[in-house]
């Protein structure tokens, strides 16, 4: 594994690990039939593409994967031409906690899964053209561009198209959408219920009857490429520990990172986060750095 994240394609192309990462991404594109190569014409608004390199780390902080992702420079998109509506399906944190508490009270286990390259699953309604990926141009047709069939990361409509795809699929499978929370999907059968909460490409679900969970996994695997399946233990930076008589929710990992960031790993400990009788006001004595307050 490569330990450093390259800052440019040039750097990445010198490292075999990263080249593999990029090939993997392009193979994913081919599998999902993301795009087709077409000749460029004058009236096309061609959106640039860019490689983004990211090291994936596990809970212990060890680098497990060199991931390359090709993104579109969505900021060049023009409304009305390149995209219509934008939308992102995120659940409220309260909704996630409510689901956890509810699962706990009903004694069922929660599972999680992750859709591989979720946005590549969303169909695109508009005609969008992107330039060829830097470093991987077609030698025979260097000035051709790609016409997109599926959404690409970075495109303004990508999250919306993915949500559309997911919800249409689940609705067609007999799931119902939550009345106010549109990212919640429910299915009742007999006296059992399965609850599915989507947070973009992360999905948590649980049921009073384990066989409903298995059914859900099966249909999802039939439709999308899934990864990281298993018991819920890490979601949106929250560490979740499911034990026999309850669920524990904490952020020790993030907390340690935070302390490290501000060089406070070895500081004294305080028993309360704020002193009694501490009332802050806008006193005008000397301005200090803001960075520590940002969270």
């Amino acid at each position, binding site marked *: 594994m490569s330990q450093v994240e390259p800052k440019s394609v040039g750097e990445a192309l010198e490292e075999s690990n990263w080249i593999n990462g990029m090939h993997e991404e392009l193979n994913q594109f081919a599998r999902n039939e993301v795009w087709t190569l077409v000749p460029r014409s004058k009236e096309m608004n061609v959106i640039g593409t860019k490689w983004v390199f990211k090291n994936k780390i596990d809970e212990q902080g060890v680098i497990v994967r060199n991931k390359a992702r090709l993104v579109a420079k969505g900021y060049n998109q023009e409304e009305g031409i390149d995209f219509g509506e934008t939308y992102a399906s995120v659940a409220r*944190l*309260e909704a996630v*906690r*409510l689901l956890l*508490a*509810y699962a*706990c*009270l009903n004694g069922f286990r929660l599972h999680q899964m992750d859709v591989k390259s979720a946005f590549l699953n969303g169909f695109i309604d508009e005609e969008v053209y992107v330039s060829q990926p830097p470093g991987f141009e077609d030698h025979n047709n260097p000035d051709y561009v790609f016409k997109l069939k599926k959404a690409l990361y970075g495109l303004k409509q990508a999250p919306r198209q993915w949500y559309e795809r997911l919800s249409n699929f689940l609705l067609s499978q007999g799931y119902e959408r*939550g*009345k*106010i929370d549109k990212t*919640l999907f*429910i299915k*009742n059968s007999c006296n059992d*219920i399965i*609850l599915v909460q989507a947070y973009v490409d992360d999905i948590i679900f649980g049921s009073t009857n384990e066989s409903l969970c298995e059914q859900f996994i099966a249909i999802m695997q039939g439709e999308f490429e899934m990864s990281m399946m298993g018991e819920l233990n890490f979601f*949106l*930076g*929250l560490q979740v*520990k499911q*034990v026999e*008589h*309850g*669920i*524990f*929710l*904490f*952020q*020790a990992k*993030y*907390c340690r990172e*935070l*302390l490290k960031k*501000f060089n*406070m790993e070895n*500081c*004294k*400990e*305080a*028993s*309360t*986060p*704020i*002193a*009694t009788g*501490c*009332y*802050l*006001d*806008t*006193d005008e*004595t*000397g*301005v*200090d*750095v*803001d960075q*520590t*307050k940002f*969270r």
Partner: protein
Amino acid sequence: MTASRPDIMFSVCLCARFQAKPNESHYVAAKRILMYLKGTTEVGLWYPSEVTLNLVGYSDSDFAGCKVDRKSTNGTCHLLGYSLISWHSKKQACVALSTAEAEYIAAGSCCAQTIWLKHQLSDFGLNLSKIPLLCDNTSAINLTKNPVQHSRTKHIEIRHHFIRDHIMNGDCEIQFVDSENQLVDLFTKPLNKERFNFLKNELGIIDFKNVN
């Protein structure tokens, strides 16, 4: 970070108000939060099973708590069984003239959240009504029950009155709680160690060591 740490919610919110123009004293306060985190890295929320399903909302306010513009701070929280699922610490948008008014506004925002949770739970197949909403101010409670306007309350904005409507519909029910058992104190004022730890325990904010 506040996603699993309601214990630092109040202090973080207080500091955040001065993001635009921070100075020495704010820096010290922010550092204090980090020092507290250092000692409590593995603290989180504990959701125990084996309890009855009931939803309770708490609301409280700290009248004119902000020294700068004398606005009050709202604090609300909701427990499902013993599990703390939602909490809130926010400076009110307008200046309240009396404690009752400040509490009334807090109860209103607590009510709004209660309604949302109620709908969400009904999606889960759980229908609740008359959800208790606990408040420690009798005048505010009377305000919600009695639609009579008088000189001290007639100015309260209409949007804050929607709580009355929901109480009449039977969606929630306001109840008195004495200050000792008012769990929301954690989100409205700085507390001493004993009280702070007592409330943390009551809300199920515990250290990983104590799980099991």
